[in-house]
């Protein structure tokens, strides 16, 4: 039973999250207190849920891409592009589209899908290694976003639809941040798609062995393309959330390094970066761990720049505990019988 629990994908990220929360319960004052201000909930926990939304969305897309054995490092740039497009339209800087809210959202999301198709074609059809293929858009993306905003930071404070747009990223529905609903809806749709259809199985199969999946009749190219499109779409959605939260688009800084955080969330969630078996839920827990860490550092009142140091230590700790070799090396000396059993089963696996 215990063994099964330890092996479960959700175990280590959940432990990390619980440890973080316990740490906060002891050392941070009023971390768990939730008040009602202006008819909506208010507190550190709500803050974490609200701020994790963009990262959680990216983690959903990234998990699927990584499940196929790929990686998408262009999401940060896509965040910048979609934010730039949405804000430019809302602020009526792009005359052709008008300044409607729906138009802005649709165009921004379409831009994400186009970016996804571009990445997908490079990876699936041209067969470029995923890191390089998405590196292209990562490098170019911020430049493109600058082209859209003409090198300026777009603020939408005086636009007609600013309040409606602001609501998406920072508004509250039934007292809960609206962004949380967006993440939940996206998660549910994706989970239904992955768990209730053969899609998820196909993804795992082609992440494990691309070639044999192809021989088994799975349309590998199409599936890979779809995962990158999903990732691009999620990135565009995240871009809308981020830009609406600050009522503006800053092409240089919006979503900077968020791709690293997203990959980190997937890794903390216990998913192998080599592809194969994956769990979107545990990636979301991974995203929560990262956001919880950030909020903790802010709540403790330490210099915010030190966050990267804390992050590094947490990544190293989590990665090492997830590694079988490390666990064997550290805990192996306590139970020799188990070690030899593990070795045997490993040998068996190799033979089979």
């Amino acid at each position: 039973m215990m063994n099964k629990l330890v092996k479960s994908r959700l175990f280590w990220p959940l432990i990390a999250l619980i440890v973080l929360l316990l740490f906060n319960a002891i050392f941070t004052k009023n971390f768990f207190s939730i008040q009602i201000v202006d008819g909506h909930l208010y507190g550190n926990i709500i803050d974490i849920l609200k701020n994790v939304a963009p990262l959680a969305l990216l983690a959903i897309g990234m998990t699927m891409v990584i499940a196929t054995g790929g990686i998408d490092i262009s999401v940060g740039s896509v965040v910048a592009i979609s934010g730039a497009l949405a804000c430019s339209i809302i602020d009526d800087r792009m005359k052709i589209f008008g300044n409607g809210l729906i138009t802005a959202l649709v165009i921004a999301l379409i831009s994400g899908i186009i970016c996804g198709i571009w990445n997908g074609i490079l990876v699936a059809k041209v067969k470029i290694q995923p890191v390089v293929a998405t590196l292209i858009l990562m490098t170019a993306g911020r430049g493109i976003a600058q082209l859209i905003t003409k090198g300026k930071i777009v603020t939408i404070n005086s636009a007609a639809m600013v309040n409606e747009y602001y609501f998406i990223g920072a508004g509250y529905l039934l007292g809960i941040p609206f962004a949380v609903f967006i993440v939940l809806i996206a998660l549910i749709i994706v989970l239904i798609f992955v768990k209730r259809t053969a899609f998820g199985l196909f993804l795992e199969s082609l992440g494990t062995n691309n070639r044999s999946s192809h021989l088994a009749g799975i349309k590998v190219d199409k599936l890979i393309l779809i995962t990158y499109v999903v990732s691009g779409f999620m990135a565009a959605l995240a871009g809308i959330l981020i830009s609406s939260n600050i009522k503006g688009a800053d092409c240089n800084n919006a979503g900077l390094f968020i791709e690293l955080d997203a990959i980190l969330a997937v890794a903390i969630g216990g998913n192998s970066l080599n592809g194969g078996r994956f769990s979107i839920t545990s990636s979301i827990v991974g995203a929560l761990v990262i956001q919880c860490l950030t909020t903790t550092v802010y709540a403790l009142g330490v210099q915010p720049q030190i966050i990267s140091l804390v992050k590094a230590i947490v990544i190293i700790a989590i990665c090492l505990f997830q590694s079988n070799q490390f666990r064997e090396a550290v805990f192996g000396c306590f139970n020799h019988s188990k070690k030899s059993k593990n070795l045997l089963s490993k040998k068996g696996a190799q033979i089979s």
Partner: protein
Amino acid sequence: MINSVLKKNFSIIITICLFLALFIIGSFTYKGFSNAQVFLNLFVDNAYLIVVAVGMTFVLISGGIDISVGSVVAFVCMFSADLLQKGWNPLMVMVLSLVIGTFGGYIMGYMIHYYGVQPFIATLAGQFLYRGICYVISTESISITDPTYSFIANYQIKLAPKMYLSLSVVIAILMVIIATIVLKYTKFGRNIYAVGGNEKSAGLMGLPVARIKIGVYALSGFCAALGGIVFSFYTLSGYGLQNIGLEMDAIASAVIGGTLLTGGVGTVIGSMFGVLIQGVIQTIIIFQGNLSSWWTKVAVAALLCLFVVLQRVIETRGQQVKHVKVPRKEATISK
């Protein structure tokens, strides 16, 4: 004979040709571009990137990736600026930086090889760690006023009147030469290609995979630290936000220079020209005058795209030729 040499070095020849073409286009379009110092400045301004790209090439050839280098460069600048301010001996500072860089790389390599941590994640941890330490040292920019550093930074090797190179360029070119020799003519270098080509079969052949893989990351850490020292000569200051995204520039240079990210293929000279191509693009954009600097990024990305697609085309063509020559059964086995 010539044909085989051409075929073997095809992608690097393309890279060099492209570099020359860009430079010639620049010389014809802009006044003063063909000045020899403009050419030399490509090296002067990008010396640190060349050094970093050398280390990155080793890692990429072995089939790994190291995204910590940008932070290492920033860390070394910050660290040496801080120690020099406290009156340390400059030579000691340099040696210490190199030791720390190498040791950091060693640790990351150890985690990657023995604990099975993904290279991307392990070096990502390194990136965050170094960046974090930068901010622990100081969140402000620290300038370097040490006389030795200033002397090295301002020393000009006169090649001719109005033509000079800095000492950093000498370091960079030395690194490229040494790295090329190591890769081509030593056991360690050739083993890297073997591990990059197929780690399992390299292990079965009896090659010391652990030593090679860890060594490669240690080497990359060393190069990044050296790049950091060169960069501190270049800017004479340390700042925690320096060189964000440098690792991607280094990777892009290597890819433009013909290194495959799947491992097993690549040259250091190619990476150097990859850096120089980025330098030329930057120079052209500066000479053009009315374009923003982010156009550099778009141009580099376009080139990167062109190169990887070109490499793919050449690769698939090569495979097709092989398929024709080899009997079908053998071909499937070798796959």
